[in-house]
């Protein structure tokens, strides 16, 4: 029976795509292109406006800094140095470029260079693996660890590490918060016992959570040379992000519609049946709302935590590029900013989809 339910749920979850598809196809069938163009036209126009403003803004900042540099050369070293500086800036030479907000075109170029860099590193890795294949086989035969590639990570690897960390943290949050939420939602006395705990630890900042996790994990890993940055960062992310799920689950479980409880009583369901067949299904929508908040919080705190934990993810990437101060560092930071934003948006959409799948209207059964 249980399995039956979940199977049907999935079917229902996909069914919501149907009207959207029908809408899309019928739109073109009806030849109603104008309204579609109007809608997407506004979006495209706003993007173009945004890029234009960004371009103008960065140009203004660029000119301000360039003028300052020339002015400075003039007052400190005289006319000749100022002319040289002006020529240098105009020639586009990287040694004297103003280091300010990059223009959209520079960011685009950086994205392409990061992708090209990824291809180079992937090729490197493959070559390295091929070269070491024979040696590694021998090492493994001798019972030793194989030699692995330890070169720098490419941008794509960094993004994947971040996503991995977020999902590990999210999973941890889910495994901690949902069961505890259910238990304290069911028992009012446990709820008041846990309440102070939740109220105090909920507002604690991600940085402090990181420090706490660091203290504990560092001691647990003592004498172990392996890299624990990933472990520390995903645990910190999980602990930071789990509160929304914990509170929502407890609330959902404790505020089940009285009609459903009456049904459970009249049918004389046992405690187990009552919890799993009535209380949990009816609080699923709230639990998933909590999980959605948890995932977006996890992604948001991830950047700060990776930076602190020196975990090879986007947070560290941004920080290192800032410290680096190379000519294209600023535009790489902006690339990372967009990647963070887009992934965060996609994660939220994903959760929204799952949430719509499990939720039902309160009045549906009534």
């Amino acid at each position, binding site marked *: *029976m249980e399995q*039956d*339910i979940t199977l*049907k*749920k999935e079917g*229902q979850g996909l069914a919501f795509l149907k009207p959207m598809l029908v809408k899309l196809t019928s739109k073109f069938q009806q030849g109603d292109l104008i309204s579609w163009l109007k809608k997407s036209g506004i979006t495209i126009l706003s993007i173009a406006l945004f890029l234009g403003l960004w371009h103008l803004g960065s140009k203004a900042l660029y000119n301000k800094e360039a003028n300052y540099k020339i002015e400075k050369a003039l007052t400190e070293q005289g006319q000749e140095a100022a002319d040289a500086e002006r020529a240098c800036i105009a020639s586009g030479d990287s040694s004297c470029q103003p280091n300010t907000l990059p223009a959209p075109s520079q960011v685009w170029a950086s994205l392409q260079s990061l992708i090209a860099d990824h291809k180079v590193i992937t090729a490197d890795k493959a070559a390295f693996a091929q070269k070491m294949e024979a040696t590694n086989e021998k090492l493994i035969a001798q019972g030793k660890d194989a030699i692995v590639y330890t070169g720098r990570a490419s941008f794509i690897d960094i993004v994947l590490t971040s996503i991995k960390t977020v999902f590990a943290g999210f999973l941890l949050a889910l495994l901690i918060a949902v069961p505890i939420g259910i238990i304290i939602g069911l028992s009012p006395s446990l709820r008041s016992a846990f309440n102070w705990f939740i109220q105090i630890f909920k507002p604690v900042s991600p940085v402090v959570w990181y420090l706490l996790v660091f203290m504990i994990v560092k001691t647990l890993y003592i004498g172990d040379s392996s890299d624990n940055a990933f472990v520390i960062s995903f645990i910190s992310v999980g602990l930071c992000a789990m509160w929304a799920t914990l509170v929502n689950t407890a609330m959902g479980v404790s505020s089940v519609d009285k*009609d*459903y409880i*009456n*049904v459970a*009583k*009249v*049918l*004389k*369901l046992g405690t187990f*049946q009552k919890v799993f*067949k*009535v209380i949990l*299904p*009816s609080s*699923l929508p709230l639990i998933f709302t909590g999980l959605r908040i948890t995932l977006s919080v996890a992604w948001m705190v991830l950047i700060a935590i990776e930076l602190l934990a020196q975990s090879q993810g986007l947070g560290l990437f941004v920080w290192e590029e800032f410290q680096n101060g190379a000519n294209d560092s600023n535009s790489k930071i902006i690339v990372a900013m967009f990647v963070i934003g887009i992934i965060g948006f996609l994660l939220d959409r994903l959760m929204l989809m799952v949430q719509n799948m499990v939720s*039902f*209207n309160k009045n*549906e*059964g*009534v």
Partner: protein
Amino acid sequence: MAYLELNNIYKIYGEGDGATEVLSDINLSIEEGEFVAIVGFTGSGKTTLVNLINGLLKPTSGEILFKGEPIIDTSHERGVIFQNYSLLPWLTVGQNIYMAVKEAFPNESKRVLQQRVKDYVAMVSLSPAINKRPKELSGGMRQRVAVARALAMNPEMIIMDEPLGALDALTRGNLQDEILNIWSKDKRTALLITNDVDEGIYMADRIIPLKPGPNATLGPEFKIDIERPRDKTALNDNPNYKKTRNAIIEYLMDIGEARKSVSQTEYILPEISPKSFVA
């Protein structure tokens, strides 16, 4: 001894100054196989009375005896059809009924139980909708599911709390016939709570008005001496029907008037008129 007996039932909500006495001095006895209707205004405490009888609530004082035993909890012997259907929206029609059947017959095999579900879904003619969820059904269909769920547990007594209140007149009439059909098949005891006098007269053997609350109590009973099966269209010409109907409505009007006159305070309005901005 009667099948169901309510003796001097009082139900008080709240404590101290905030206490409201919803029901006072309710006395009722129902014989086995009888169909009794309780008619009352909305807000007169009908649902409280129903919840006392099905065991969801406990009376503040007085005793309720079911087959001579005091009611202390809900029981599978008394099936309930709720006012708002109360189907679980995440389960299909079949699953909603299966859940009830499984609880009522824990020792039966899955196959037997599923057959029972199918039979009862067929009985309320919803077989094509067995795999649908409540949200895909109309109000009348949902109520039929609720009827099937209550009856599939094979209760000795059916308690109906305004089961047809939210339905349109046509669906209502059809469902009244369906419920009567099912009831007449094996003459279970039935208690119907309603706000519709005609529904009560059409379906029940006895009608008892509930005086409006707070302090709601039962009024004098009216026997319905109309032979079954009753014909809805012919009912209008039945002198017995007219007489009973008029008597009940007169009684309800009277107590309605009495309730109004209780709180008849005269309010004196201040003599003010809108200011004239023209002059």
